[in-house]
């Protein structure tokens, strides 16, 4: 979508007075809702909505030979489909760079936080480890697919169980065990994307705000005794972050972390 200049001006004008078109405050998120188990053939799955933005995520487990640099560690692969289902502007075909970038940032956020207990995903050292395939699909784009997709990924993982592995046949049986995918809860980080729109910073942008923004900064945040710990970051779009803006963003993160983390923890682990 290309936003008409006039509309962009209005969004910026409004934000300068601390207001947004949908009545939210600049740092206010939309309502988040979660539906678990959208596919009973998945090891874990969910639908997540941020307002009207909706994504599906599902986890499938398979057994692979480990990489040589981690012979006793499982692996993770994250894909994201930004298909024509979700947005008039999204393509029908192969993954475009936006989807690849988003999937990689989500992947790093999960990986670097230490959420996954890799060694517990080892079946036979050097021979067999579990691979987690986390696939995320955009269903409806009304802005901030980034944070919605990342959260859906976490929730699918948190609810995923390992299939039954038969050590004799060395194959996966067609049923789930009662063993959850091994996660280290306290290491969880969530993705928070800050957009600069005009001179202001917003969280959970609407589609129009995303279009009007100069740049975004995606930050993966974990809880370190009540303080935010940053586990991954990515600046997106062309604009540059000035020193003073960086300070504003970090302040925004510090002042909103506790409340947001509480909310996300509840969504992921309940």
């Amino acid at each position, binding site marked *: 979508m290309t936003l008409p200049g006039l509309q962009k001006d209005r969004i910026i004008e409004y934000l300068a007075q601390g207001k947004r078109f949908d009545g939210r405050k600049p740092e206010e998120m939309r309502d988040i809702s979660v539906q678990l188990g959208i596919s009973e053939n998945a090891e874990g799955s969910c639908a997540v909505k941020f307002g009207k933005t909706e994504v599906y995520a599902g986890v499938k487990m398979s057994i692979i030979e480990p990489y040589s640099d981690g012979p006793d560690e499982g692996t993770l692969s994250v894909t994201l489909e930004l298909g024509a289902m979700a947005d008039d502007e999204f393509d029908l075909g192969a993954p475009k760079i936006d989807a690849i970038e988003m999937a990689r940032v989500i992947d790093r956020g999960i990986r670097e936080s230490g959420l996954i207990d890799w060694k517990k995903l080892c079946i036979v050292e050097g021979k067999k480890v579990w691979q987690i395939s986390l696939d995320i699909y955009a*269903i409806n784009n009304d802005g901030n697919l980034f944070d919605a997709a990342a959260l859906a990924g976490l929730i699918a993982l948190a609810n995923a169980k390992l299939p039954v592995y038969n050590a004799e046949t060395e194959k996966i049986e067609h049923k789930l065990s009662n063993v959850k995918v091994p996660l280290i809860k306290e290491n969880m980080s969530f993705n928070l994307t800050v957009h600069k729109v005009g001179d202001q910073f917003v969280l959970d942008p609407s589609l129009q705000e995303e279009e009007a923004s100069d740049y975004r900064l995606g930050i993966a945040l974990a809880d370190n005794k009540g303080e935010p710990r940053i586990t991954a970051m990515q600046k997106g779009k062309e604009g540059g972050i000035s020193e003073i803006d960086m300070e504003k963003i970090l302040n925004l993160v510090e002042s909103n972390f506790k409340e947001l983390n509480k909310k996300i923890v509840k969504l992921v682990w309940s």
Partner: protein
Amino acid sequence: MVTSAYKKRSDGRKFDELRPIIAKVGVVPSADGSAMYQSGKTRAIAVVRGPRLLHPKHMENPEKGILRVTYQMMSFSVWDRIKPGNSRRGQEISKVSEWALNEVVDLDAFPNSVVDVIIQIPQADAGTRVAGINAAAMALAQAGVPMREMIAAVAVGKMDRTLVVDVDKEEEDFEEGEGPTDVPIALTSRSNKIVLLQLDGKISVPELRELITMSKAGCKKINEVQMKALKEPGKEVKG
């Protein structure tokens, strides 16, 4: 009555009984039309975007608009993960679904344009292409795309010698006797034309005749649910 190794459906349905249906129109707010159709555990979502400008330009038709269907299964919709994106199977199903839906849509008023139908399957228990068509027909109607009539679709089949309506995955895998025969059929709602017909298995002519008759009753019931859902967008309609 012929003897058959398939005596009882494991979910307790009668042989001519559809699985429980849930239909909902208006599931993707940013689309021009959208719908969900669920039959038992098989669930499809369809979205309509358009009429809109067509890219690439060389595909444009100056006489009328074109319909373009994209069907995909989500990677985690089945037990053995599917690689995300377009598969050969997906492309074939897209095409036969497109041919089916094309029979009822009238795009004469939209030269050089395209109407995109995107179908996703989040959860599969056989019959995904017919569920996709059922959802797509509702999405097209909600989008206000001119349609001569509606379409409803169902997979009928034969397990050994037993004829059934709305084949599920367990039935699709039934290997005793003559094994499974799977016949996805889509019918137009008024003229009762067959607009999708595929068959895998082995079947006699009288049996096929009987299956087509059974599909008509099934499609009629599906069409009633579709129409009900179209009257109440946003509401889950059960059938």
